[in-house]
């Protein structure tokens, strides 16, 4: 029964992240949303395509740095303390401020270059800024269980066999506890990036209009561009259409996070 429930849950998660798959095959949408203007439809598809690229690229970049720094923090505790102090300072600054400041220096470049190059640079800046805001929590997510395994559970018996610290850590990284930790961190990273990307896109669109940075499209910016659709005489579907897939995707990440926290218990 438990296994069936797990399969059902995984199936639900796949259904919930379907918007990401659908936008890469836009012909699927041909029969739907026929009442909408082609410009809006292409913006909708483009914004979710770019969101999926942003999520994937940031996840890969952030996961690589998280794994490296998390491993190093336990391997050399002196370096770990320095990393922890730096990350604590970063964590004390609101994420939205970090992203705003990361974009500010590049604003002129993004405004003066072609759409393709400014979009790529904008994406790179976002990946850098988002990774910076994610790192404190994700590295803690690695070092806490890894440290607990190393210092409390296995270290003594492993050491008694004469294994080196790096070898012990390499073995511990492959345990079930760490696999659950990786899954939880990945879901956490994805959720945070999704929220940050869309909130930032919304605020910039609200403050600067379509000429503001980031230059890469975001569902948040699309929602902000159609925010007046909620007013009298507007067409509310234009506002709610990008919100619905965002909520679906967030629920998928939240379910993954909930499951992993329960496994952790």
């Amino acid at each position, binding site marked *: 029964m438990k296994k069936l429930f797990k399969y059902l849950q995984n199936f639900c998660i796949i259904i919930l992240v379907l918007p990401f798959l659908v936008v890469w095959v836009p012909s699927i949408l041909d029969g739907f949303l026929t009442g909408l203007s082609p410009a809006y439809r292409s913006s909708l598809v483009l914004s979710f395509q770019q969101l999926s690229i942003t999520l994937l690229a940031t996840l890969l970049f952030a996961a690589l740095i998280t794994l490296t720094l998390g491993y190093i923090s336990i391997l050399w505790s002196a370096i770990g303390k320095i990393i922890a102090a730096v990350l604590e300072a970063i964590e004390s600054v609101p994420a*939205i401020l970090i992203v705003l400041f990361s974009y500010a220096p590049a604003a002129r470049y993004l405004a003066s270059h072609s759409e393709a190059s400014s979009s790529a640079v904008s994406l790179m800046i976002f990946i850098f800024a988002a990774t910076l805001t994610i790192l404190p929590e994700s590295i803690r997510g690695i070092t806490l269980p890894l440290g607990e395994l190393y210092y409390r559970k296995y270290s003594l018996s492993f050491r008694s066999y004469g294994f080196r610290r790096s070898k012990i850590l390499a073995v511990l990284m492959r345990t079930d506890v760490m696999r659950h930790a990786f899954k939880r961190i990945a879901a956490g990273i994805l959720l945070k990036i999704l929220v940050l990307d*869309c*909130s930032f896109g919304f*605020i910039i669109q609200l*403050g600067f209009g379509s000429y503001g940075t980031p230059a890469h499209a975001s569902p948040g910016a699309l929602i902000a561009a159609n925010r007046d659709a909620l007013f009298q005489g507007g067409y509310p579907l234009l506002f709610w259409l990008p919100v619905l897939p965002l909520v679906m995707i*967030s629920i998928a990440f939240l379910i993954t996070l909930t499951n992993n926290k329960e496994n952790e218990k």
Partner: protein
Amino acid sequence: MFAVLGTMGLVSLYFLSIGVPIEKYADAGYSFFLLLTGSTDFSMANPGYSASAIIMSGAGITLPLALISLVILVLIALSVAAISTTTEYLEKKHGNKIIPKLLTFGKAVSILLAAIPLFVGFWVFGEKYGNNAPFLLIAFITITLGGLGWDASRFLLIDMQRQMGTTHTMVFSTLGLPLGRLFPLPGTFSGYLLSSSFPRFIPYLAGKVPAIIGGVTIAEIIFSFPGLGSTLLDALLARNTDLLIASVFILLCVNAVVTFIVKTVLFFLYPRLYEKAI
């Protein structure tokens, strides 16, 4: 110190990356000094912005909004954790099956609320209330939508559930004291669990202060409140460096003040655990 160094660090990085001449550093430094000393007209490049006006936008709007949000976050987390742990206790001890089903429904609702983007909630309510939206409502949206309340409740709940299996909790449950089903008041079962989890929950709250400030900043921009979020956006729009420095500084100060309040609570409640927890 954190706010002063943080502002200097962020602004220096900004100046370095846009390559401003050295005189600009000196001008910005002097403006920052005037701000710190509370000058009525701190900006030389953009006269008219007084330090006290910017400080007031932080003290009058951003700080109270952040504090109210923090209080709501704590209340929601405590209440959810108390309801969930006592329900689990009743299910294990007395085989109660109805309330756990209601709880599953509650969990589903909390996930749904957490999945709704914060700015969508703000915009929908902003359309209804405009600039007259009550602080309490904004603080409530900041916490319930976007996942802050969900995360805090889960953190506290998991910690309290861990305490449930311990021997000292089992001994306490034999004393026949009330369960504290809605709120973990002192002298109740859930209150006892909370007293064990609090030293970990308070540092967690301190870590969430920047996220609360971030949410409040978004609210100020969307509701057009004259708080620090709007000032910051205005400064970026007008490329007004002095105003940017001032708003970043005050924002970091608000952040530091709220974090300090949270850590002071830990210090007074658990002086022996303070150093270890922080």
